């Protein structure tokens, strides 16, 4: 029987960690992820886990200690946000290339500067090519479920890669929601014992980790790493199917919401999907054929599947909660537009940068996006695809007045 509870996203993830009982958790405080190690250290203090909690002096050392622990043969975990992830940057690549399947919760937050503690996806997008599998959850339940599944995915023999469990700072991390927890023994059985093939504390076979790898071998190693990421897609689906059997909760590469006959659609990562679903329901009442794709698996990128799911749409808005600074839009936009190139369908595709630095994303913001998509369908005119929603435009008198009214 599932356990009904009311928890914040961070506490739910900490509970998952307690249930898994990892060997090492090494973490450093940063808002908004810091509650995860706080909750977890209380489990350590109360003797509920066997874990060594290493309160490191920086995120760089958090990731370094996790690498040392995982290479030694233990299960290592951590959590971070924003600048903390940025400080780990060098080590993210080393964890991935050393094929160490640790799990890290990334409680997404805007990157400095200017410093801002609130949510967007600039941290997650910044590390998108570091070799980590990236799962995104919409709410507390998904943050919890994804964390448990992440171990099985990363540790699979065909994968052996680290996994980022991404969920939105404050919106998900600090909001308390009703959710279902699994019994401790079910989680333990589901994740099983970690049995690495090679590890430093194996007394029968010493190993050396992290060589100088020069031109004769480096290229082949990077290619193997890329293949592991490709293998991850099927493994994620297998693990998700097994999880569904246990919980009844179905997870795929992405979630399609009212997409069967959708003419206009949005693609979203994270918590804003919940707002979009509400807007879609209202639009559907008015006869607008609106839909949503919420991406769960961002790395590996499910390009073919997304292209197929979007092929019947007439106009699509790709929602990026991080600007691209390439002068051509956000990362998600560029990747999805590229994914569509292989098919025959050529829906109109535009990009909206939204919600930066914790700017509220309201239902009327998303309505504006759907209205714009409907306009594109009606007129056939796309215009500049690189757009913003919810930003105050210094040149737009109407927007300024609206913003002033909202402030009052």
């Amino acid at each position, binding site marked *: 029987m599932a356990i009904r509870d009311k928890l914040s996203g961070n506490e739910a993830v900490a509970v998952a960690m307690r249930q898994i009982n990892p*060997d*090492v958790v*090494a973490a450093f405080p940063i808002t908004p992820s810091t509650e995860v190690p706080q909750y977890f250290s209380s489990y350590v203090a109360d003797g509920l886990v*066997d*874990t*060594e909690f*290493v*309160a*490191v*002096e*920086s995120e*760089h*050392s958090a990731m*370094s*200690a*996790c*690498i*040392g*622990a*995982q*290479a*030694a*043969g*233990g299960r*290592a975990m951590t959590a971070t946000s924003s600048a903390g992830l940025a400080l780990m940057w*060098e*080590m993210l690549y*080393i964890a991935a290339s*050393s094929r160490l399947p640790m799990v890290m919760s990334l409680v997404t937050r805007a990157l400095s500067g200017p410093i801002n503690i609130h949510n967007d996806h600039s941290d997650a997008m910044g590390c998108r090519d570091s070799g980590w599998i990236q799962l995104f959850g919409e709410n507390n339940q998904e943050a919890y479920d994804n964390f448990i599944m992440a171990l099985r995915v990363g540790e699979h023999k065909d994968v052996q890669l680290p996994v980022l469990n991404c969920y939105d700072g404050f919106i998900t991390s600090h909001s308390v929601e009703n959710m279902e927890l699994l019994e401790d023994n079910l989680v333990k059985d589901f994740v099983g014992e970690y049995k690495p093939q090679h590890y*430093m*504390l*194996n*007394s029968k076979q*010493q*190993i*050396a*980790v*992290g*060589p*100088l*790898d*020069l031109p004769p*071998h480096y290229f082949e190693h990077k290619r193997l790493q890329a293949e592991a990421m490709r293998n991850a897609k099927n493994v994620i689906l297998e693990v998700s199917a097994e999880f569904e059997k246990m919980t009844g909760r179905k997870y795929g590469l992405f979630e399609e919401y009212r997409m069967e006959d959708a003419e206009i659609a949005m693609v979203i990562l994270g918590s804003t999907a919940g707002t979009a679903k509400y807007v879609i329901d209202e639009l559907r009442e008015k006869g607008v054929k609106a839909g949503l794709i919420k991406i769960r698996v961002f790395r590996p990128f499910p390009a073919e599947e997304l292209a197929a799911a979007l092929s019947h749409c007439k106009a699509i808005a790709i929602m990026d909660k991080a600007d691209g600074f390439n002068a051509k839009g956000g990362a998600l936009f560029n990747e999805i537009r590229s994914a569509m190139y292989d098919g025959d369908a050529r829906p109109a595709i535009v990009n909206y940068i939204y919600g930066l630095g914790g700017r509220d994303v309201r239902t009327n913001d998303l309505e504006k996006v759907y209205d714009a998509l409907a306009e594109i369908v009606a007129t056939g005119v796309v215009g500049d695809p690189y757009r913003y929603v919810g930003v105050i435009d210094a040149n737009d008198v109407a927007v300024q007045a609206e913003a002033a009214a909202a402030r009052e």
Partner: protein
Amino acid sequence: MAYNLKETSLKPERLTGGHRMCAGCGAPPVARTILRALKEDDKAVIGSATGCLEVSTFLYPYTAWKDSFIHTAFENSAATISGAEAAYTAMKKTGKIDDTYKFIAFGGDGGTYDIGLQSLSGAMERGHDMVYVCYDNGAYMNTGIQRSSATPKYADTSTSPAGKVVPGKQQFRKELTRVMAAHGIPYVAQTAPTKNFKDLYEKSEKAIYTPGPAFMNVLAPCPRGWRYETSKLMELSEIAIDTCFWPLFEVVNGEYKLSYRPKNKRPISDWLEAQGRFKHIMKNPEAIVEIQEEIDLKWTQLLRLCGEQE
């Protein structure tokens, strides 16, 4: 049992030959001596910061290390090994392993005094049962002899060149061993490969088998950076000790203890003139006097800390 070089040398090598370190480099005999201090039955996890020792001993697909070994990056040898030690503690507690492991992290002076200082300080403060060894050759030798905060004043390096106006490095070196002693950890030592390696071996044994964190700062002459004939490795080490450029001492639970007091303290010019990197100041008596005064000051301070007569 009293130390005996011949007997300890019979132990199987844990850093084997075939690595690519230079002839006349201090780091390999330092590393081998430290590993010899491990009990034969004890296993070890060895870490190294990026640097000469790492890139020359573990070039894929070969490793010269008999024990499990890990290199991750430049600034985090201490943090990486602290994570491995934490995993060991957890896995031992839950019965997943039952062998005895020791944890030793190496770093050069660049990876220790400079970029790795935070990681080192954190690992020592947290109390991991590990040894951190700095092999100090006084510059970033692996990248081509750039100055570090361990480089002695007036040394000619590739980023503190002896020019027409500026005669080499402009700062005295950081007293890292004393910085580490100030952490209040159970064992800190300053040592060097000298004579029959007794000082280095015995301090290594203490560092490894003292529960909790230990730090060793070991002088490791570098023929390329210091510019000496490769055959003179041991001689350079000896002059450094006898001029009191590199005093031998240990700090046990906060108590300073001098390990060796030269009968005749040699002038610092003996040490300077043995190395090409100081050639440009040998005709500059003021600079030599300045260095001598600094050496004397630090030596006097150390004698006081050790409760020795000045």
